[in-house]
């Protein structure tokens, strides 16, 4: 037969149990709030980049697109940059500016026809293929389409190499 729980032992268990329960209850809204980025993924929207005829065939230019759900105090981070390359009458290749090595911003050198990364020396060809250095894969691409004479790209999360 089990020994009866003493009064003090019972009060200890009661106090600790109730405290633990209260902590668990309070932690539900706090953790949900902190983990909300995982619970509310940003929508993937088609965003206007510019009229098709503002891009010259064969040229690569820097453009900005809005973030899809910026907070009111986002400031400059309410926009992001992309590299747009027009490859044909209706064909475009749009790259994220992030190097696939560690995410630093790649610079386009039109005369050299290369993207250079200032951080660890990653180099890419005009079509995004790795030309040298540590990047493990080609530049990240955005989905593109042409709608009503407008080039559009589909928003995406921060690309991870």
């Amino acid at each position, binding site marked *: 037969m089990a020994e009866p729980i003493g009064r003090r032992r019972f009060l200890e268990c009661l106090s600790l149990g109730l405290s633990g329960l209260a902590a668990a209850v309070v932690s539900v809204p706090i953790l949900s709030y902190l983990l909300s980025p995982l619970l509310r993924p940003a929508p993937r929207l088609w965003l206007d980049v510019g009229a098709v005829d503002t891009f010259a065939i064969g040229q690569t230019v*820097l453009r900005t697109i809005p973030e899809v759900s910026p907070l009111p*105090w986002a*400031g400059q981070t309410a926009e992001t940059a992309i590299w747009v390359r027009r490859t044909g009458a209706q064909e475009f290749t749009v790259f994220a500016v992030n190097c696939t090595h560690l995410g630093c911003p790649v610079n386009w*050198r039109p005369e050299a026809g290369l993207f250079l*990364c200032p*951080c660890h*020396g990653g180099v890419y060809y005009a079509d995004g293929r790795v030309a040298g*250095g540590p990047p493990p894969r080609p530049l990240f691409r955005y989905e593109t389409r042409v709608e009503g004479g407008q080039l559009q790209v589909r928003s995406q999360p921060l690309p*991870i190499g």
Partner: protein
Amino acid sequence: MLRRVAAWLDDRLGFSSSILPLIRHPVPRDVNWWYVFGSATLVAFAVQVLTGVALAFTYVPAPNSAYESLRWITQDAVLGSVVRGIHYFGASAMVILIVVHAARVFLMGAFKYPRELSWLTGTLLLFLTLGMAFTGQLLRWNQDAYWAMVVAAEMAGRVPFVGPVLTQLVVAGQTVGGATLTRFYATHVFLFPALMFILIAVHLYLVIRHGISEPPRAGEPVDRATYRERYHAYLAKRSVPFWPDAAWRDVVFALAVGAGVLLLAVVVGPPDLGKQADPTLIEADPRPDWYFLWYFALLALLPPPLENLFIVGFPLLVGVLLLALPFLAGDGERHPARRPWAVAAVALAFLTIGVLIHVGYEAPWSPVLDAGPLPPSVVEGLSPTAARGARVFEEKGCHNCHRIAGSGGRRGPDLTTIGDRLSRSQLTARIMNGGAIMPAYAGNLTPADLEAVVDFLAQRRPPGATRAE
């Protein structure tokens, strides 16, 4: 009257009966200047808290205001530049002091029985100090800060299986934006400091409970069965009260460090803020502060196949090793003279980190994006074809990665005298085919441009040298 007030306070607070015995606890008479780094770290932390609170009175942790508020603090606020300077150099001092303190504890074997928990709490405080240094750098909200956040998110994304989830947690969303800065701000000013206060309290309690370790003596290993008895016998014979017999050194050293930090804050001032964080400005050359520069350098020098393993495995390995140390080597010899591997490990770690920080400042792997034109001494007197080759060299980005006569990048070999090392056909092959870190220019140069740049490079020889083709 004053005496009566003091007596009343002492009676109610119990200073003489409770607190005074604590600060006068016996410590080994032989403690010396090597023992001052822990208390100096604590003082540096207190200075960081004070200056951090002062900065938080004005700093606005929102992307649309953070940079401007910090600029106002630096340029317009009364002595704001000095406060920011103290916070900046105080952070550096704290990182240096806690690392030296950890190295001293390791080299003197003070982590061994019964002080394992002191080492564990100290290790966690080291990690948190580095975390504070990193999150603090991001609050400047300049281009370096923005891209450092992106790099941190990318590195988190390399963790197997949970990488994307971790990235979203780090940046508080899908991209670095409005919620990211507030997340790092809350971590920097609330979460990490709260954890540090708790750990410091436990760390200090353990110092009182187990006493300050006596200076090690060769041939007197730690034996769990006898150590405590031996330590107390030692204290009974050779101890002094911590206050003031030992504490005076802590006070003098902490004041010296504080004076150095203040002097740097006044004379040198806080670091230049640079450009405001803006994802649409890609003319950035992001660099971490010096305490992470060695890691930045390491990531540039590692063979790419090892990189993912290293990004995840290296911090994990260091963390596990440090936390496991008192359980792997909890007894035995403490004196460094009897632990040559321990001395070698510390020396190697300091040497490696020092060299990597130096290399990180040099960053020879980064192309020089604003290399500018070749110097006149290089282009003057060239034949028309070679002069055209020099222009091609500049335009095609060769100059961004190759140095000639002290001008240009250092990503690739110095080409000042390349004509003495490679023939025209070898030069042509290298340019056309590229290499491990060099792009192939086969589809990117006209035959005339190729001939011109080869002509230019073939003429790059030491004065008076000739080369048989």
